[in-house]
């Protein structure tokens, strides 16, 4: 990852969309940056953290998105330029604050604030395909959606200026195929920002009393709408009077260009690229729509542009309104991300073209050969992952307890338990902190005849993010449950970010550890801490806690993430090998079939388990659990 403060100006760089955004923010003079990690948004703050010392920034991993947003808001109140970045799901956590900000304004110190929300169409790393553009409209925040890497950089810079001019926060929609894609960006000059923070204590900023402030905000949005009607972020390319006008934004623009080129439709199809999505540039859209008989709208997830375009046409009372094709007409899908093939298929249907991507004989051959051999590759915990040990113990304890304990979980690497290749002990799974909130509910159903024990799961990072409030609720309202904190001492899933339990900040400075166990004890519950790799002790302790009817019990299963540990220690803890004469091979298969560790394989010729040298982390778990004691571990010096 390059240090973005040090990129050579005026030259071309291969930048990730998230890097382009971060560089744009640096050039715009951002000084305060806060976020909670979430794929695909995380690299924005990671880049600020990396540049923090050179650029004189404050860059922090906040304990959740709402806190990050409130902290960034204060920096704007004090006259700085600030940024809060999050994934789609994180927006829902921050929303209570965001809904208020533009009514209250950013104060009178000429601060500015940008909120970047990274959506995840196709749910590559999310529980849903939430399209957050509607929410920008709800919060009365000007919304831009970049359609290229260069534009991500330029829009970021622009939005800081717009935010400062109107005294309201602005919104950049990021998305997976921008955030986690890379392309060519020409960057400009970067100068270290040196604004001083101050606040006029005679002033108060709050949305209360809302209606008059709402009226002012509506007026501001009308002014911004006029700007957006003329904005160069919206542009038309193609023939003067196209047979078909594509209106597109975001990832749809490059997909549309590629599809038009693939089908050779350059003389018939034009593209109106929209970058300013709220307030919606209705007049611009209507003026282009009038040039075409048919319009196809290409956008990701919801028919947001489609809905606004149809409203604009209705308002314009066109005598011969064109046919609008898109999601509602069935030409484009509501589901999943854009790709060139989806646009190609829509264009083929519209123009009655038959498109053959490759020789049909070849396609038949592919299905004959590859169709037989290619098998699915499901997600599974890494070799050495402590969650494999924890779920082994949890499963064991539930089985031996014998009362069908219910398991509610949340979001982290342990979520993979619920995937097809996981152990599938998880019963319900929604969002950060949801494991303890739902356990609290199940734990209060005894009066309705509920007799099953209840296990709520969170991680160390989700504990600080959104699990403390449900824990307090469960304690106070007398839920009977075991809260398990699967503590791998890092925010692993999103790329090893620190959290308040790790003792390090985003910029790798030391910080006072907030101890989860001390906090839980202070709240008044029984707290037990066990090494996750000690599966005997973990199982026994969980069984004991399940029997304990005394309200909320907390079990911390602690062991460092293997990937993080390896980064720090750079050597395996044990030497691990198979003693073949003891191995019962496929008659047993415990290590590869039950534990499903990627580091252990099966050699069909010898009918023995084998340690895969390139993949095994030599954690020793399989050696501890091998029923025949055929796998041996020896401590390394």
């Amino acid at each position, binding site marked *: 990852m*390059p240090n973005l403060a040090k990129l050579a100006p005026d030259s*071309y760089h*291969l930048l990730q969309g998230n890097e382009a955004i971060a560089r744009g923010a640096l050039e715009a003079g951002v000084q305060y940056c806060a976020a909670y990690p979430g*794929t*695909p948004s995380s690299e924005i703050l990671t880049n600020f953290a990396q540049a923090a010392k050179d650029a004189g920034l404050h860059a922090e991993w906040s304990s959740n998105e709402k806190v990050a947003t409130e902290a960034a808001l204060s920096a704007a109140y004090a006259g700085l330029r600030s940024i809060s970045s999050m994934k789609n799901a994180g927006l829902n956590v921050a929303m209570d604050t965001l809904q208020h900000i533009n009514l209250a304004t950013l104060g009178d110190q000429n601060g500015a604030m940008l909120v970047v929300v990274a959506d995840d169409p196709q749910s*590559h*790393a999310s529980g849903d395909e939430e399209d957050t553009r509607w929410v920008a409209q709800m919060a009365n925040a000007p919304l831009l959606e970049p359609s290229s*890497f260069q534009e991500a950089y330029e829009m970021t810079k622009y939005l800081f200026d717009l935010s400062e001019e109107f005294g309201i926060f602005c919104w950049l929609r990021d998305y*997976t*195929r921008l955030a*986690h*894609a*890379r*392309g*060519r960006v020409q960057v400009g000059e970067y100068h270290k920002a040196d604004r001083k923070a101050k606040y006029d204590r005679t002033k108060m900023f709050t949305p209360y009393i809302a209606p008059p402030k709402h009226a002012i905000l509506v007026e501001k949005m009308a002014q911004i709408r006029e700007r957006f009607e003329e904005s160069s972020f919206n542009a038309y390319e193609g023939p003067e009077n196209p047979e078909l006008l594509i209106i597109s934004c975001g*990832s749809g623009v*490059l*997909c549309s*260009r*590629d*599809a038009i080129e693939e089908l050779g439709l350059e003389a018939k199809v034009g593209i109106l690229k929209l970058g300013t999505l709220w307030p919606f540039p209705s007049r611009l859209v209507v003026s282009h729509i009038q040039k075409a008989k048919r319009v196809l709208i290409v956008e990701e997830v919801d028919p947001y542009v489609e809905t606004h375009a149809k409203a604009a046409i209705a308002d314009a009372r066109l005598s011969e309104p064109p046919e609008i094709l898109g999601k509602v007409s069935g030409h484009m899908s509501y589901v999943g991300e854009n*790709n*060139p*093939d989806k646009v*190609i298929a829509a264009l083929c249907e519209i123009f009655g073209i038959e498109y053959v*991507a*490759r*020789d049909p004989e*070849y396609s038949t*051959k*592919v299905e004959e*050969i*590859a*169709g037989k*051999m*290619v*098998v*699915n*590759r*499901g*997600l*599974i*915990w*890494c070799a050495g992952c402590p969650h494999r040990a924890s779920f082994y113990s949890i499963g064991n304890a539930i089985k031996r307890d014998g009362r069908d304990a219910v398991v509610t979980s949340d979001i982290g*690497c342990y979520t993979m338990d619920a995937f*097809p*290749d996981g152990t599938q002990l998880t019963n319900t799974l929604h969002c950060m902190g949801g494991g303890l909130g739902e356990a609290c509910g199940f734990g209060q159903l005894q009066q309705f005849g509920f007799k099953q024990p209840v296990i709520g799961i969170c991680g160390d990072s989700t504990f600080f993010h959104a699990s403390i409030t449900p824990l307090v609720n469960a304690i106070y309202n007398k839920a009977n449950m075991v809260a398990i904190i699967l503590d791998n001492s890092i925010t692993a*899933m999103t790329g090893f970010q620190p959290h308040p339990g790790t003792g390090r900040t985003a910029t790798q400075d030391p910080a006072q550890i907030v101890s989860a166990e001390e906090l839980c004890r202070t709240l008044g519950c029984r707290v037990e801490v066990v090494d996750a790799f000690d599966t005997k002790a973990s199982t026994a302790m969980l069984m004991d806690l399940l029997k304990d009817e005394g309200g909320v019990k907390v079990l911390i299963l602690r062991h460092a993430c293997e*990937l993080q540990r390896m980064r720090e220690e750079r050597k395996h803890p044990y030497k691990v090998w198979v003693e073949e004469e003891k191995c019962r091979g496929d008659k047993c*298969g415990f290590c590869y*079939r039950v534990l*499903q*560790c*990627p580091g252990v*394989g*099966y050699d069909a010729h010898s009918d023995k388990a084998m340690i*895969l*040298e*390139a*993949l095994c982390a030599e954690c020793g778990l399989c050696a501890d659990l091998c029923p025949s004691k055929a796998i041996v571990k020896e401590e390394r010096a």
Partner: protein
Amino acid sequence: MAISADPLNLIICGVGGQGNILLSGMVGSAYIRKGGFATIGETFGAAQRGGAVFSSVRVSEKREYGPLMPEGKAHLIIGLEPLEALRMVQKYGNPETVCISNTYPVVPAGVSANRDKYPDIDELKEGIGNLTKQCWFLDATAIALELGAPIAMNIVMIGAVLGTEQLTLTPDDIKAQLQESLPPDRLELNYEALSRGMKAVA
């Protein structure tokens, strides 16, 4: 002879943790340094560990292309894992596609659990061979293990790609990228990995 298509559609595929992203970044940056456009679409995130990962790399002198290539349009598939190479041939291959793949299998969880069967490696190679214009195989993981650094497998693979001369990139282009992305004390090892990869397909 190097592939002359514009846009040039490359796929780099493998399993999470194998170094796909570093590789696609080096290739993309090297082309941008030569004055062209490069766009890379990547699948990672929850898929970072153990899942199938692929980068779609699109290189052009003309304009910026989208990060995802249309299906059936790959010119070159670089497989860090052989099953993943075949998976990509299945979706993006065509009779003109060429492929360079590592032969070291990373067995999916469903195979370990006896739900699925990992194909016989010779059949897998033959299958890729039958579906491509030309293909090269090497056990890049074994080479990297010989060097004492399994993590350098991806660099062995890019060495092999250079060795086949399918790209217009030179060893110096990649060395310049290594210098930018690695600490100085790791350079010698990676130069060696590069050279061993080149030799493996010579």
